[in-house]
């Protein structure tokens, strides 16, 4: 199947169910989630541990298959894609920000940021050049050649965000992006993510436990026991600088 994304489409899922295990050890992580995330705004997924946030974001990002339910991401029915097509879909269209940054320790900041471009077939030199530009945009122009071990937690997370955005993905998924950094850095990280989310063709979903960042959201979806318990719009009070 040709995974052609459609402009103006966000994330749409209906009756999403995810089971782990079988028989007596069967666990229902998602119990029929209906969700619509439009582009151009920042959506937070919140809820207690074990409520299914990580499972849901993994399915939306195409790294996990749902057991049942309809799933359309950027206008593409992910259920119809083979694993290979899903991998290609992720490479082109999804940017990831992880809780523990997940930077490759042997690569410099610029090389880390260049990785998604290299995965998409860009050769090393132009990939590094674009990565350098991206790092400058997130305020790390002085740290291009630094290894992750030479960077603070906040700087590492900014590198991770630059890496998530360098190939201009349509969908940005972030898993607890502020949990491993201090409050002030967390605010800066969320400002960066919000700036991305505000772009009209971008879809941004952030999983968080951190109530201090709720103020950045356009919409907050609360999950409980594998179901959406509440979904409400908010008035974001943090302004963002476009990236």
């Amino acid at each position, binding site marked *: 199947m040709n995974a052609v994304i459609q402009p103006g489409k966000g994330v749409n899922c209906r009756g999403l169910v995810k089971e782990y295990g079988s028989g007596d050890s069967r666990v229902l992580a998602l119990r029929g989630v209906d969700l619509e995330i439009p582009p151009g705004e920042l959506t937070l997924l919140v809820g207690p541990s074990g409520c299914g946030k990580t499972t849901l974001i993994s399915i939306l*990002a195409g*790294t996990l298959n749902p057991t049942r339910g309809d799933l359309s991401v950027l206008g593409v029915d992910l259920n119809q894609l083979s694993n290979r097509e899903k*991998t*290609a879909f992720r490479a082109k269209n*999804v940017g990831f920000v*992880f809780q523990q940054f*997940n930077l490759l320790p*042997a*690569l410099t900041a610029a*090389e880390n940021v260049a990785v998604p471009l290299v995965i998409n077939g860009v050769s090393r030199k132009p990939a590094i050049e674009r990565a350098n530009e991206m790092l400058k945009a997130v305020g790390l122009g002085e740290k291009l050649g630094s290894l992750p071990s030479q960077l603070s937690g906040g700087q590492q997370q900014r590198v991770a965000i630059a890496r998530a955005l360098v190939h201009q993905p349509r969908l940005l998924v972030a898993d607890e992006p502020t949990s491993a950094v201090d409050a002030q850095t967390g605010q800066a990280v969320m400002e960066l993510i919000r700036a991305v989310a505000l772009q009209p063709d971008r879809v941004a979903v952030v999983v968080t436990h951190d109530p201090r960042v709720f103020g950045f959201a356009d919409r907050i979806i609360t999950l409980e026991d594998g179901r959406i318990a509440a979904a409400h719009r908010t008035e974001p009070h943090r302004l963002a600088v476009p990236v």
Partner: protein
Amino acid sequence: MTWIALKMLMGDRSKYFAIVFGVSFACFLIAEQSAIFCGVMLRTTSQIRDTHGADIWVMNTGVRYVDDLKAISDDDLYRVRSVSGVEWAVSLYRGQGQAQLANGTYQGVILMGLDDATLTGAPTRMLVGRIGDLQIPDTILVDEAGFRQMWPGEPLGTGKVIEMNQRRAVVVGVYRASQTFMTLPIIYTRFSQATLFVPPTPTGRLTPFVLAKARPGTDPEEVARRIQERTGLKALTNDGFSDLTMSYYLEHTGIPLNFGTTVLLAFFVGTAIAGQTFYLFTVENLKQFGTLKAMGLSDRGVVGMILTQGLVVGGIGYGIGIGLATIYGIFAQRAMSLLAFFLPWQVLALTAVAMIVIVLFASLLSIRRALVLEPAVVFQGGA
């Protein structure tokens, strides 16, 4: 992704060096033991290689290797000469004798008897004296190692006297011989002289070999075949006789088994060290592979990265291993003249094949682990 794979590989220095060490160690052991095996095998044919001038060895059909002495008739020399394509043919005596030294002790020797007129097959690397002096009655040439064995601590020189079959023999020259499989001194003299240095045989036959030269422009293999047809004797080219000799030692001695066991052990030890270290390296990097897979790196890309890493450490380990084996061979031969060490291209190829097998084995274990990894685990703080 190649440069990323290499940076990942070399980023963890201790692991990287451990993997390279494992492959290097295996390659060194495999190459070194194989080279010693080849050296030992080569020594079994050193006397064939040291006999210059002739193309073809003619012998009794029952001969299985160069030291398997079975006499042929003296008339066979003339029958060989009569075969078309034979430029010339001469008798070569080869036997074992007992030398009595001046101090009364006895020493077993290999006795070579050259054609009286031409001295065909004489050694070429003379250290002391002249080959031509063999024309003087009761004279011999002794190889350097044999000289030192019979007269330890004394400088190489002529004039030493030994007694064989109650006849005195005077050393008129010392030459350098290739190391032989047996460590007996090798004494050269004329054919007629050699027959006096050993007791008479019950059959009266003394000629074990006839050396023949093929006419210019004639294929020695073809001439050897003709000699066999016409005389009923066994006729082999120098290479053919070397192969026959080596085959005998391979089939009838425990040498290949003993060396094969060591080579196999080296292979297994190397595989275990390199395989385990490389596997652990991949396991410790699973989080990174998981991240790359989540970001859209295909399974093919993962396989390519791991194979690249494996082949690079394999190539470096191979180079270091072969280099160490070569250095070992050079220095060990200087320190121990008896060490047999020969590193032909076949050993390099064998070691390369072993290295590829080691690397593939190590890579396959790692590839399997990385491929079954679900990219979703990176969201769970796992991987």
